[in-house]
């Protein structure tokens, strides 16, 4: 029997993986992928709550989240391409011009 707790645990695990990815990776592409994981984790818990509470509003929100994620990826990838053209690297620590 798959309970709500199992879904939420799965969501938490995916979210943690994403968080660690965002924190630790220096490669901007990896950061972007980890961000996608964060969004996916939240989508899982939305759908799980929606299913167990019988409220379809949660599933509706998931569509919005996917939409936003797609837009974010499009912009993020464009930025990464530009960054590569400029700095010929996609390491996040190379972006230091904002430092004191």
């Amino acid at each position, binding site marked *: 029997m798959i309970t709500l707790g199992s879904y939420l645990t799965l969501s938490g695990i995916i979210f943690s993986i994403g*968080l660690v990815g*965002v*924190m*630790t*990776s220096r490669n901007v592409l990896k*950061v972007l992928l980890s961000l996608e994981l964060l969004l996916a984790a939240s989508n899982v818990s939305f759908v799980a709550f929606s299913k167990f509470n019988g409220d379809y509003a949660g599933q509706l929100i998931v569509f919005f989240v996917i939409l936003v994620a797609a837009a974010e990826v499009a912009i993020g990838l464009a930025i990464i391409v530009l960054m590569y053209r400029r700095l010929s690297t996609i390491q*996040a*620590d190379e*972006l*230091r*011009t*904002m*430092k*004191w």
Partner: protein
Amino acid sequence: MVSPQLVWVAFFAPLVACVLITLFFLKCKTSSSLIAIAGILTSFICSCLVFTQIFQSNPPAQLQQSLPWIHLDTLTINFGFLMNPLAIMMLLIVTGVGSAIFIYSRGYMDEDPSSPRFFAFLSLFAFSMIGIVLSNNFIQLFIFWELVGLSSYLLIGFWYAKPSAADAGVKAFMVNRLSDFGFLCGIILLWSLSDIGAGRSFQFTDLMNVVPHLAPHMLTIVALLLFCGVIGKSAQVPLHVWLIDAMEGPTPVSALIHAATMVAAGIYLLARTFFIFAPSTTALTFIAYTGAITSLMAAILAVAENDIKRILAYSTLSQLGLMVMALGLGGPMQGMYHLTTHAFFKALLFLGAGSVIYALHHEQNIWNMHGLLKKMPITGITFLVGTLALSGIFPLSGFWSKDAILGLAFANNSTLYLIAALASGLTAFYMGRLFWVVFWGDSPVHRRRANEHEVQESPAVMTIPLIFLAILSAIGGFIGIPHFLFPQQAPEELNLKVALISSVIALLGLGFSYLIYGKRTEADPLVTKLGGFYTVLQNKFYFDIVYGWYVNTIQQTLAICLARFEKEFIVRFCVGGVTNLARSGGKTFRYLQNGLVQFYALIFILGAILLFLFLMLIK
């Protein structure tokens, strides 16, 4: 009836002249002097008309008119005038003697390129002085009191390129500020005490009803504080030092400010607010002795002075001392009487001295002058009239007024009488000395650079005011001034004994001076006779030296300490501390901005967790 419009015109005519000159005629010498003279003459004529109106009304009219000026929550200060016999008398002196001096200045300042500025200042001074005379409340009086101080500063330092003149102006201003502080304290104290009946007030007429209800010791403090202002403005010991240095100004200024009007303001204040002083015997005694000491000290100092204007300045000090003494002895009538006659003959003497200085091309040392009577007969004779009047020779005006004071002193306090009599004797002596040395002798000026120029009598624009003032000095004792000022008081009988003694003293003084100075001498014979005391006199009883020492050491040290406190504590510690705090705070926290996106994300997540925990906790 007295018409208020006339008073207002008399009040503001000199101000209008001053404004006109400063705005439009600063380049134009002739018109600026004419405007100034027109202004003061308008004032004079209006005062004369008001005088006749007051003179005809019986009992003497008193007129008060005021406009609300400054509105505060619980306090309204009026701008107005209080016209009574005392005020109109003083107004006549200020505008009348002022007119003579203004006209005279037209001749005296003729060669000065910046004379328009001079006439603007002179008009401003006349306006401020009229303000003091007419003010009906203490705040207005104080403002004009300060204005007089300011214009006096401007006029003493008129030749500001000369360092001694600039210093003298600053000195006069500073000394007056010092005394005005006490004056202001007195005004405020009196105001705070006047909370009886109709409520607090600055107005003389209201205060007159309040004063009888005040505690005697508080009234003494008020009177002494108010007297502080008089000490400064009327140059009493120990704040007399500015008046002598003020002789650096142009001579008409010395005549107007430092003889006839400004220094008389203190006496006038005492007389006008005598109701405050009268109940306090302690204050009155203090005032009387201050006056007597000033009178004697100045008379002694005048004997050793060699500058023609400074001698006259010392005699002014001495006479002011006599007036203050008279008021201290409870005789505002005698004090004001002497003030009036003194204004006539002192202005005359100063203008005469100015005429001599003008003729000798700014020579002021009396030992470089000789036998001027033949060359400058009008100046010489009018100067003689002034000298005799000042010495108190019958029947000139000085005799009557000085005798009134001496009679008062004789009746009340024999110590003060002796001091005053001695001072009058010395007055006759040094005035005789001045006259013999400068005007006497057969050969005309021949000493040093003066002989290069042919000495001539001054132009008519200068001699006519001299003659006008000489006539006033001569007949001033017969025109019933004291009766007009204080009609309710019985005219004092001439005390024959006192009159005789003072006449003898005056004649003795003049005679002695003739014995010593009647013959031509190259230098002062007193120098050898007085010996060591002469050095003391030369140093003016060391007042300036002591003050200089005090200012240079004690006050300067204090100022340096305060400056250090300000620099080290306030600027470096307090103000600098705030900037250092901001700067070091910024330095510390800017390491958070390391530019790593992940680091920001970490902070963000930590913040989110903390917020989450916080929300959990408060549930």
